[in-house]
């Protein structure tokens, strides 16, 4: 059997999957602790051997690729002029490239911003500002203000094209490297993040991952093709197209982890706002990823308690135990609970994480007072009400009853949230999304088959 070996180097585990390239089916899988501090490939090789043995017949490895979030992921800072316009576009490009966004700088930048940038020590800076043929002066001033504070960062310039060359010259003196890409917001209402995202992705593979010194072998750098969240978003785009219309307007993916909760959404069709509804803010990219840095099952369990304490108390009961249990999780991130009240708390925390992360990711519809106190129906942010498929990932959901937890989170979303309704919930029990995102680069059709097969097989419930 001809197989692809697809791996994910996580901070704690290295997961490996063998996919039959003829059938687009998962035929073997294994995971090993990520060997940080030593040779990262040791754990990987061991997992590959197990995955191949799992197949149960001779296998011919034709493709080998990996995504990585080990070593702190891809640390980025996004820079723009106006929130809602170039700042939002830059943020979207960075997050979609799979970055761990350590900071966002916006507006007219000064000394304090330069100091902040230096202290954030990003690996890549994405610099935006001005529409094409628009703002020049402030964009140049911003670049000048930051020029001495780039540290070891690579810079991707995605600003007003009229000044992109000048900006790049300003950065070139101090940055590790400078790359000019098309403006992320060429016109008002047109977000164009793909080229910036691809460039960031390429820099991650060619420059950043090598710099992390996770491996002594050049093989590691050849294996890693993208940051893990980048792979998941690529798979979400593919899955939305592979659902043969069943995805409705598009697809939403949630991923609950120990430190963060990610939400990805891909809209294939533009939802229409109703008559008399004001659209607040400007159009955004159809595919976006958001990361909630305060919502996680382990290191950020106290953050979940802070964000959703009242509901958690209602489920678990008030008292010290809840707070202590969350605190314990943050100090023992490797702890695994398979039953009892601790397991139950993990499940409720997962509901909280998904509920809050979806609530923040999706847009809202509400009555607001505008100029002269006139109330009007205002819609803001992405409208995902027509998405008919939600794919939920995260170790906690892999065991029963993952679908029930997702349904519980969805049921808590208020009518004012522009969140998916009447959607099929699919639990990504086998981490197939990340693998499919990797496979999509070389073999998009096989990746689609993989998603169609795996995600359909995993349908566990319909949530109305």
């Amino acid at each position, binding site marked *: 059997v001809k197989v692809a070996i697809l791996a994910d180097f996580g901070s704690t585990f290295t997961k490996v999957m063998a996919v039959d390239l003829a059938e687009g089916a998962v035929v073997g899988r294994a995971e090993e602790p990520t060997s940080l501090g030593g040779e990262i490939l040791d754990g990987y090789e061991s997992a590959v051997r197990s995955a191949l043995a799992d197949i149960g017949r001779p296998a011919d490895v034709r493709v080998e690729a990996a995504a990585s979030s080990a070593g702190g992921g891809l640390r980025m800072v996004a820079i723009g002029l106006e929130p809602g316009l170039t700042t939002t576009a830059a943020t979207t490009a960075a997050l979609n490239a799979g970055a761990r966004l350590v900071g966002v700088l916006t507006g*007219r930048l000064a000394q304090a911003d330069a100091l902040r940038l230096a202290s954030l020590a990003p690996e890549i800076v994405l610099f935006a500002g001005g529409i094409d043929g628009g703002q020049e002066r402030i964009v140049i001033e911003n670049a000048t203000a930051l020029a001495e504070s780039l540290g070891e960062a690579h810079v991707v310039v995605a600003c007003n094209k009229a000044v992109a060359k000048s900006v790049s010259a300003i950065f070139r003196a101090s940055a590790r490297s400078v790359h000019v890409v098309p403006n992320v917001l060429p016109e008002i209402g047109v977000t164009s993040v793909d080229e910036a995202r691809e460039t960031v992705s390429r820099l991650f593979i060619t420059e950043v991952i090598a710099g992390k010194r996770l491996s002594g072998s050049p093989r590691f750098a050849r294996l890693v093709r993208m940051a893990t969240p980048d792979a998941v978003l690529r798979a979400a785009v593919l899955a939305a197209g592979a659902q043969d219309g069943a995805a409705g307007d598009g697809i939403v993916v949630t991923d609950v982890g120990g430190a963060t909760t990610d939400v990805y959404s891909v809209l294939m069709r533009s939802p229409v706002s109703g008559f008399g509804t004001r659209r607040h803010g400007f159009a955004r990219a159809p595919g976006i990823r958001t990361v909630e840095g305060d919502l996680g099952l382990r290191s950020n369990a106290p953050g979940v308690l802070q964000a959703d304490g009242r509901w958690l108390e209602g489920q678990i009961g008030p008292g010290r135990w809840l707070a202590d249990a969350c605190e314990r999780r943050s100090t023992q991130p490797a702890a695994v609970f398979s039953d009892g009240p601790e397991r139950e708390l993990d499940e409720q925390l997962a509901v909280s994480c998904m509920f809050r992360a979806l609530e923040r990711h999706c847009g809202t519809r509400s009555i607001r007072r505008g100029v002269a106190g006139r109330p009007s129906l205002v819609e803001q942010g992405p409208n995902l009400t027509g998405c008919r498929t939600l794919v939920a990932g995260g170790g906690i959901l892999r065991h029963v009853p993952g679908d029930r937890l997702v349904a519980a989170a969805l049921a808590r979303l208020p009518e004012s949230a522009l969140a998916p309704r009447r959607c099929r919930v699919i639990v990504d029990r086998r981490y197939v999304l990340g693998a499919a995102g990797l496979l999509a680069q070389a073999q998009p059709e096989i990746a689609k088959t993989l998603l169609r097969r795996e995600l359909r097989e995993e349908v566990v419930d319909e949530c109305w």
Partner: protein
Amino acid sequence: MTTPVSLAGLLPSDLPDGREAVAEGRAEGTALEIAPSLYLQQKGAGSERAWRERAAADGISCTCINIGLATWPDTREALGCIYEDSLSRGIRPPDRFNILAERRMGLPKALRLAAPQETGPLLMTQEDWWETTHTVPIQPEAADNTIGGPGSHDNAVDAIQAGITHIGVLSQYMWRWPYWEDETGQVMAVLRAAGVLAAHRSHGVCFDSYLEDGYPGVFHDYANYVGWAMLERYVCEDLIGAAYSCSWGGLTSDPVTKAAVTLALRAFRPEHVPAGFVQGDTIGNRADIEANAGVVSTDVLFMKAVDLRYRLGGAPIAVPVTEMERIPTWQEVAQVHAINRRLEEYLPSVASAIDWTLIEARRDTLVDGGRRFFEAAIAAITSSGIDVTDPAQVLLVTKRLGAAACEELFGAGVPDEDYPRGRRPVMETDLVHQTMAERSRLLEFVHGSGDSRLGGMRLVLASTDVHEFAKFLLDAALTEAGARVIDAGVNRDPEDIVSVAVESAADAIVITTHNGVARSFAQVLRKELRSARLGEVPVFMGGVLNEDVEGSEIPVDVRADLAQLGVAPLATVEELIGKLAGFACASPGAPT
């Protein structure tokens, strides 16, 4: 190719099944009996539809009047006077009248008395309803505020029992009623009422619409009028099971266009149910009241000629010449009714001289266009996962979509960015016709005053409200004058406009406003510009420069306040271009 759109998000997740509401109404309606009205007794017909079909076959012209005095007793008395007046003139009295009830009638009975009183008849008791059919032998239609609102069901039951067999107004499901926020409940009430009507379809009961009360009233293309009527017919007949009657006409002056649309609105309806009425021209009248006699005569003559030639069984309304100035008295209504009857004498001669092939060709074009609209709407609804067989889902999704979006998405015309809704209308409505004429005039003005006077100036253009025509005209004229127009969109807040000004390094900002917020908007905009260190960017504002203030019943003029705030108030587009050109020359940094 345009991005596919989705309508799914417009529906609430807990919308009840509309078919159940229809079934409930139908069950209830079966138990009701239609009392014969004076008019129908006189004609020996079981329903207005039955009589009209007979009249059409026999070549008898019918007429309709609108009468809505301050109260039902006033209206009742006026009806008696009009009936007597006709007899004294020796002409046939009107065949029917529309009950233009007060807005409270749209609410459920229990809420009516607590709501604020407005002008118009309010029918509260069964006796009131009985009087509508038994005062004089003129057949009433239960029209405004009967069906469409949350009180639809109460009204449908009362109207049927009183012997009214044309009941409307389907298109008014678009309306909102004061103190009623429950849109879902409103749609369900309409469907229950429609079920009551459906139960009496075989008795000749019709669910009438008046297109201009719904989105067609603000459509740009007559083909889309026809497409919208196809959508209403689909819901009414195929989904609900009631007979669909399609009235229209008040916003059209051109008699040939009106004839073509009237015929198109009949062509696609298999049963050819006679329209409740064809409304007379309400936009052609001007201040010269005597001259308006020409408007009413032409309008009515053509409506009647079409009706007679094609045996439509419609009932044209003659609009009183004073209607623009005041609510017509009974005498004024009686006078135009007399004109309506007198014109019948000229019909045989005039009808034989009209080029009907021209009108029929336009009819066919409109029907083709209408089909494109209808099919596009059904396809978009279906592909959004909405159940196109549930009348509640179809009614609510189209209501929430809005008129502009309906035309932009489903419109019959070919894509053409020169038009405000992105499509060249198959047949322009009067409003669009006027706007396009204004656009041509402005472009000529720009050419005449020297090309590219604004060479490369960056102008941020935005509207404070939903109005599209002014922004459309400004964009066309300013671009033609050489400016780079950065369109910040409609419905914008001051903060949004400042953000766009920063990103685009705007040389000036142009605001159009029609929603009575001019001063507050200018204040916030100026403040936001200052805090973005763009205090020096000039701001121009045009449109309706007033503001609603407490203590004043009408909005107050705020032009002086605007000037004081440093926002230049404008009267015309020409004035704006002149001022911008002056600014372009005076400002050393500005491009030349």
